[in-house]
């Protein structure tokens, strides 16, 4: 009886007791959910546009953040000495974008082109390879110590009544929102966007209407690199640029399962559900099991969704004509 009370009644009584604190927890959850969504978006984009599940998305984010920090601190790649001029954030970001586009070219040339017409599983495996290579190269190029990334996003708290909201989180939300709108228009309404979706559907038919596969792949991976850069900047500024950043990709997996692998709104809402769920369960149910619910909550939720809706909450239903 006592156990039941502790699990099913006490937490809700606590919530009702101090609604302001509850709201603060929920908002905190929403904000960290946005961060998950940012990473999940990278996966969804590549998957929608090329049919490839890109395992290296997390490492791309790490690599982008490392490059950005390196440029801002004037680090010489590979020698790790600070001999180059320190670039201001805007220029460093522009240069990092160029580097990510360069990586997209390399990936197309070295990995994807020899694998044309292979099954999706093989391209998926190759992205695991890309992840390891990039992580290794990132390590030798920029060193493995934890770096501080500050591109001038305002920090501090914003106080409404008794509630504290971190201004940084608001920025993250705004940036994620803009990113999503721009990408959605790009994919739905433009020639290149349409060409991307066409290539994902049918290589041969795409070729027959004159869509050049190579260019499209470079575009897809450049967009992935760009989204990775945004994710990398946000996570990097929040918790420092370190190699565990590449593991945030694993955090994005349950988001993808919950939201559906093919849905951009799904990635966002999935991220928010997990963010809020984690925080609320940690704060109110955590003490019952001595905490650390945050670490596994997302995966349990994903398993439950898998049981009842394998395509995710917003994923495309698989249509098959028989």
């Amino acid at each position: 009886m006592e156990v039941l009370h502790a699990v099913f009644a006490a937490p809700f009584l606590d919530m009702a007791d101090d609604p302001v604190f509850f709201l603060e927890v929920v908002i905190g959850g929403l904000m960290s959910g946005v961060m998950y969504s940012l990473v999940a978006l990278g996966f969804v984009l590549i998957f929608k546009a090329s049919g490839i599940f890109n395992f290296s998305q997390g490492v791309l984010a790490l690599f982008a953040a490392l490059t950005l920090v390196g440029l801002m601190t004037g680090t010489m790649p590979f020698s790790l000495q600070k001999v180059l001029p320190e670039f201001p954030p805007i220029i460093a970001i522009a240069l990092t974008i160029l580097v990510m586009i360069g990586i997209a070219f390399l990936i197309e040339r070295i990995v994807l082109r020899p694998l044309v017409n292979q099954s999706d599983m093989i391209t998926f495996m190759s992205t695991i390879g890309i992840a390891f290579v990039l992580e290794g190269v990132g390590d030798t190029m920029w060193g493995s110590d934890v770096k501080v990334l500050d591109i001038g996003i305002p920090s501090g708290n914003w106080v409404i009544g008794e509630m504290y909201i971190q201004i940084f989180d608001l920025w993250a939300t705004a940036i994620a929102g803009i990113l999503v709108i721009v990408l959605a228009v790009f994919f739905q309404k433009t020639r290149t966007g349409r060409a991307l979706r066409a290539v994902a559907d049918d290589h041969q038919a795409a070729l027959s209407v004159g869509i050049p596969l190579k260019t499209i792949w470079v575009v897809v991976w450049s967009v992935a690199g760009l989204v990775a850069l945004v994710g990398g900047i946000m996570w990097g500024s929040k918790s420092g640029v370190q190699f565990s950043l590449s593991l945030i990709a694993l955090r994005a997996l349950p988001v993808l399962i919950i939201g559906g692998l093919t849905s951009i709104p799904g990635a966002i809402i999935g991220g928010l559900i997990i963010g809020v769920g984690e925080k609320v369960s940690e704060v109110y149910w955590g003490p019952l099991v001595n905490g650390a619910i945050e670490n596994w909550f997302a995966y349990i939720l994903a398993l439950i969704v898998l049981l009842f809706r394998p395509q995710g909450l917003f994923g495309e239903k698989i249509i098959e004509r028989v």
Partner: protein
Amino acid sequence: MTVDPQTKTGGNLILEVENISLSFGAVRAIEDVSFSVIEGEILAIIGPNGAGKTSMLNVINGFYHPQEGQIQFGGEVRRQMRPYQAARGGIARTFQNVALFKGMTTLDNIMTGRNLKMNRWATNIFAAAFYVGPTRREEMRHREYAERVIDFLEIQAIRKTPVGRLPYGLQKRVELGRALAAEPTLLLLDEPMAGMNLEEKQDMCRYVLDVNDEFGTTVALIEHDMGVVMDISDRVVVLDYGRKIAEGTPDEIKSNQAVIDAYLGTTASSATA
């Protein structure tokens, strides 16, 4: 040059395939085949299963690269085509087993056909990412043409339907629409009427004839339905085991002994004789 209005022979050659041989390992798919396509005609390529008809289309459109021979198209002689060059040069095609972008709507599918017609500057990625004025105008302009194709094929009602949900006959029509949207000079149709019922076949015949008539588009098609072939084509090329065994007007082909043998088998024809 004078063009015979009945057979359209004597017109300009739009495509010349010369001594093409194609093999996959030890399998000879096409052996030393030559023929030409005359501007404005409807040419049918027929033959029993495995005769190399689809391989021939794939060679013309650049999916397969022949080991020998050359292709003359748009004033250029090439050893082999590339899909991009073919599309650029005005060759559009449909596929035997419908290769549409299944998750996209009818309209989007047809808009991909406009891909090469769109202004590259106005639709470059950076402009497109922000969907600024020129991009939007360019999009509208091509949307207009796509709507004309949709009207022509009478598929207004399914404009916004994802094509994966459409019945087979309509999918074939959308695929034709995507090819037409490219304003092709040469249209390659791989079994456009396969698997259709009589009514759908009649519609499709009408569209092919109208395209040929109204837009002057040259058509090369593969078809198994002999009634259709004899009705709509100006000339027929017959392939068998990768070789060309006959070429001529439908009437000539009907009475050609080699063709009858290929379709009925040599012994069967001698038995009936």
